[in-house]
């Protein structure tokens, strides 16, 4: 036997460093090392040391009584964690992330990246690509440290670095006192007092036609009924991780009037008798995180919620965690892998309990619907398309931003009536009706009423999170498609073959020079649609399908 191990070699694998263990313990404090707080602990170490060294991860594993693999596999899943092993260089002290998703691509993100990389000292600044940061109306967007920047240029970014403007900047928003002074939380109180019943609210939401505004469009009140039908204890989650490229409405609402969402959440939690609310928030929104921390603490101080009832959780840079079951996995401290359905999360959700999950904006409307009446809300739309929606419009329009417009509005109406028309020198050519996964439609289909189902569905498209990106003659749709497919390839969780392999193969095929092998592409599309576990894989082929159907001239 050749391999004779030297005696007394000690235990196998990476030894534990006592100093690192002491540092981790001091940093994490005396609290319980709950398994589901793993991602929060990783954030603490990343924030403090700028990266996750192998020794710190080993110490964290020891402290949490996990194995090294269990900690490493979670840390390596998320974009915002930098694992640095022995012998590897830790990243530069400051990171500038430049968005390279579709709206920012239109606004010159590639040039910005190149200029930055040329102009920044790599020992001091790390320049990175990043997927959609939810600042599409201010494209090209960037983030220096924790400071989010709109209309970024290489020049002003480097200037800000020199000036030390790298801390989070919290915009002015309606705080707790201001919110209460205009009637905030009175509805919650009356519900808690029993003046309004849960069934009553469910009926109102149904009449108003409030549907899930994260993309699935499920009737909100109906969901409450499902969750309530399963025995408790029940839990609630707020999905603040909507990261569909082109979407920024959630950020706008939380940066403007966060308590409206919180009150809606507390009302919903009361309705399903949830024992706790987990607010899972995109880590790409540092300002929103700061606001929520402050305001949740304020609610606790004011006695409106029990301390700890609303638990804020940071995402860590993974679009897939906006998918509700993947989000629950992330809240449980795991890799964000979507679960198999059935069972649905209303029955078996967070920690195996029935869970109610809502998008930020869905909750935002609850107070208005109840106070002003469902007819008011429904009437903002039309009989076929009740209700109003928040459209995140970006791209080649004069005035991009969040536009409140009725459900069933057309893209032409959005452009002309809400965005001041196309930008100068740009002619309307194509648009994304629902972010990267809703497909690409030509201008000739610009009069389709945008809503869940309907004509859009017949065209193989959907509104999803209502993120509309407008293209002009300056944009080659094949390039747009490639940009979207690269996004999906980067964000695929990797669990199932059709999505993991399909997104990668589609990018490779789109990149190649010359005519596209269309039957190969159609085969990929077929297996992704029919056999992917979750919506990412099922919807990812949409842009490619439309490219081959409507934009053959761009091939």
């Amino acid at each position, binding site marked *: 036997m050749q391999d004779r191990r030297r005696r007394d070699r000690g235990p196998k*694998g990476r030894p534990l460093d006592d100093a690192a263990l002491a540092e981790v313990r001091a940093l994490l404090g005396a609290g319980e090392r709950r398994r589901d707080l793993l991602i929060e602990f990783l954030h603490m170490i990343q924030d403090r040391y700028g990266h996750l060294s192998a020794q710190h*991860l080993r110490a964290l594993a020891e402290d949490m009584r996990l*194995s090294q693999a269990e900690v*490493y596999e979670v840390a390596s899943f998320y974009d915002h964690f930098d694992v640095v092993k022995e012998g590897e260089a830790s990243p530069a002290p400051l990171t500038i992330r430049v968005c390279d998703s579709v709206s920012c691509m239109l606004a010159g993100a590639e040039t910005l990246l190149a200029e930055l990389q040329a102009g920044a000292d790599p020992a001091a600044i790390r320049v990175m690509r990043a997927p959609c940061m939810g600042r599409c109306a201010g494209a090209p967007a960037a983030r220096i440290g924790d400071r989010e920047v709109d209309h970024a240029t290489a020049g002003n970014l480097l200037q800000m670095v020199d000036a030390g403007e790298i801390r989070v900047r919290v915009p002015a928003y309606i705080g707790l006192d201001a919110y209460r002074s205009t009637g905030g939380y009175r509805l919650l109180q009356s519900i808690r007092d029993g003046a309004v019943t849960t069934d009553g609210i469910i009926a109102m939401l149904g009449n108003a036609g409030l549907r899930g505004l994260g993309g699935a469009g499920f009737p909100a009140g109906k969901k409450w009924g499902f969750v309530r039908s399963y025995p408790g204890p029940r839990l609630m989650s707020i999905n603040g991780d909507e990261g569909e490229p082109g979407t920024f409405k959630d950020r706008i609402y939380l940066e403007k009037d966060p308590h409206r969402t919180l009150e809606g959440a507390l009302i919903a939690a009361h309705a399903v008798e949830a024992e706790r609310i987990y607010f899972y928030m995109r880590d790409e929104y540092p300002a929103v995180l700061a606001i929520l921390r402050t305001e949740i603490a304020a609610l606790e101080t004011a006695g409106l919620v029990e301390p700890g009832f609303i638990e804020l959780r940071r995402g860590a840079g993974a679009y897939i965690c906006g998918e509700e079951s993947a989000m629950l996995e992330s809240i449980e401290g795991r890799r964000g892998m979507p679960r198999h359905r059935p069972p649905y999360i209303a029955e078996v959700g967070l920690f195996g309990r029935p869970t109610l999950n809502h998008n930020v904006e869905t909750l935002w409307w609850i107070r208005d619907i109840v106070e002003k009446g469902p007819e008011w809300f429904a009437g903002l739309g039309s009989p076929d398309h009740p209700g109003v929606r928040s459209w995140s419009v970006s791209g080649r329009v004069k005035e991009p931003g969040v536009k409140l417009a009725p459900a069933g509005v057309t893209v032409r109406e959005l452009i002309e009536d809400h965005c001041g028309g196309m930008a100068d020198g740009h002619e309307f050519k194509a648009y994304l009706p629902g972010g990267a996964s809703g497909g690409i439609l030509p201008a000739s289909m610009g009069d389709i009423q945008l809503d869940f189902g309907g004509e859009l569905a017949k065209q193989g498209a959907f509104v999803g999170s209502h993120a509309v990106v407008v293209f002009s003659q300056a944009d080659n749709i094949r390039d747009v498609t490639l940009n979207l497919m690269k996004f999906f390839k980067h964000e695929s969780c990797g*669990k199932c073959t059709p999505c993991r392999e399909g997104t990668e193969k589609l990018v490779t095929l789109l990149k190649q020079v010359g005519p596209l092998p269309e039957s190969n592409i159609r085969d990929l599309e077929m297996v992704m649609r029919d*056999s992917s576990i979750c919506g990412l894989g099922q919807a990812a082929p949409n842009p490619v399908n439309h490219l081959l159907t409507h934009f053959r001239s761009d091939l």
Partner: protein
Amino acid sequence: MANGITFTLDGKTVTAAQDETIWDVARREGTKIPHLCHVDMPGYRPDGNCRACMVDVEGERVLAASCIRKPTAGMVVKTDTERARKSREMVFELLASNMRPAAKGPDQQSLFWQWASSMGIAQGRFESRFAVDDMRPEFDVTNPAIAVNLDACITCGACVRACREVQVNDVIGMAQRGNHSVPVFDMHDPMGLSTCVTCGECVQACPTGALYEKSLMDETGRTRVVQEFDKVIDSVCPFCGVGCQTKVAVKDNRIVQIDGRDGPANESRLCVKGRFGYDYAMSPERLTKPLIRRDDAPKAGEIDLRGVDPLTIFREATWEEALERAAGGLKRIRDEHGGKGLAGFGSAKGSNEEAYLFQKFVRQGFGTNNVDHCTRLCHASSVAALMEGVGSGAVSAPFMDALKADCVIIIGARPATNHPVAATYFKQAAKRGTKLIVMDPRGQEMMRHAAYSLRFKPGSDVAMLNALLHVIIDEKLYDEQYIQANVSGFRALEAKVKDFSPEAMAEVCGIEADVLRQVARTYAKAERSMIFWGMGVSQHTHGTDNSRCLIALALITGHVGRAGTGFIRCAVRTTCRGLPMPGSSRCISPTTSRWRTLISAPVREFLGPDARSEAWADRCRDRGCHSRRRDPRHVHHGGEPGDVGSRPEPCPCGPRQTGTSGGAGHLPDGDGMACRCGFAGIGPCRKTRHLHQHQPAGADRPACTRPARRGAARSRPDRRARQPHGTGLELRPCLGSLHRDGTGDAFAEAHLLGTHRTRGIRRLSSRRT
């Protein structure tokens, strides 16, 4: 079947059991659906990620993964629609696109290629993912036995489940995301430098050969070269006491691979020893010819022969010469000094058959009872305590019952190192919520899964355990009913541990009083608790006392005799546990022995005249028999010349022999009368080799209906019956427990492996394993 779920599968009405998936039912019905990530072995849950098993469910928007989907009543499932078939083929094509051609790959006979070739999957239409993006497939041969070729990896996660859920070594994780997803060891470390213990479960689970045995591959560890085996033999692992069943593949008279077989003790799992520890069989250092010491070589006990050419000390000889030399020498000593000049010491590395032959050789050949066994050191102390407290040296539960237990104490054992496959069940139980309590002066791996880890001062076991007993008695956590029905001596125990409060013992054993209390409460209050102990308890100056404490813990809390309760002594070697057990009628390891004890005489030494407890004092202390003295139904095996370990001495409950002079078995209350089977006289009935309690003559006795032991029947009873009694033949008693024949007359058969009703354990199954 009742409560089944009826649905339609490919036009046929079928019924599924509650926990069956569509794939399970399809297989049962003879429809083969391709599968990759679904590992069809016990202990593996389906994961539904490879999407190779897609089927069409009527009315659903997308296809369903049959391996993970459970049917509902009335569901209409079709496996062979165009849509499902094309999806499955695309899945295989996409996976194959990243791999080398089968013949050049790590295993062309892997499950993946078996399916791919049967489906006619071709490579070449799509570019490999390793050709783009500067991605290089990982190749790692740092592990001495396993080759890692990750270009064949389909990230199905079977290896992750193998390592994290089946073996629970927690070394493998699935790291990164998207098409960078990759199985990793620890923090993406080389396998040979990680905490991997090379149990090989991942190799067994991997469907593509991405993780594969080097022994079947070429020197570089890239391609399988051993394609066929000359034979595959069903066997059992020769190493520890778990008794994992194996399949040994042989080629050119060499072992080339060992795989796990689905046995009751291991469910297809193995550890590094069982799977890869076979190279010693082919080692060039093995003795192949008999060697006799050279006349010019001095005899010295301290010579270290490692690395020394044996031919400098020994010379080759023929078998005849060597046997002559050995037998002649032994005979000479026997003739000069008599039997007592010789002794034999057996080992549990031998098989049961070898052990039997060896003791026969010593007793009959040497004519002495000077034979002992390595289990003297390992188990004698535990066995003594068990015989005393429970009346049986057997374990009372299989270790897999840990999965049914709510609380498991592990003391004096390091199962993760010494009984790795048994440890997997403990770890699985811990992950499912069973509270593990690990007591070990040294830290050990199981402590990571433990609710309580007690690193007590070495040697202070009794102090610590008595403190636990104190808490249980003091806080009235004992099972009153159980004690009244089955246990004697409780009052004495209570009095004894009165002074052993946790506060008093904390200093002695080095565990905080608070922890001792919590541990005692956890153990006592759990619905089902088990104790698993090992050599740390028994290879000990007061191992018997240690074991007594543990048995007391189980008996006063009633945690014995039900599923998920009881105690287990882990046996170090294959036949350790079985061989010495004077009282076992239930052995869980397929290798343990049913045969008689070899340690009767020394046990008696243990069971000395000093009573250790009231219960103990009440017991007849004759060799192995622990009946209550007053119990008329127990029989002493005293006096037969050939009787194993017997000594012609009076029964301690008062000589009641009649007409014997230490000859045949005597009866405590009877008078040597005719055996009901007709043998008039005293001594074992020659017909069946049973020892019967002799009934008063004249009464009409029914014939014994208990069948003879299988062993006895098999070994030509006729011939034995003709042999005179007392030739040293091993008595092989009937394996039964005390029974009544219903007429009120006591009729019992003496048995040496008795599970007496009066003991603290309920009657165990008389079915032998």
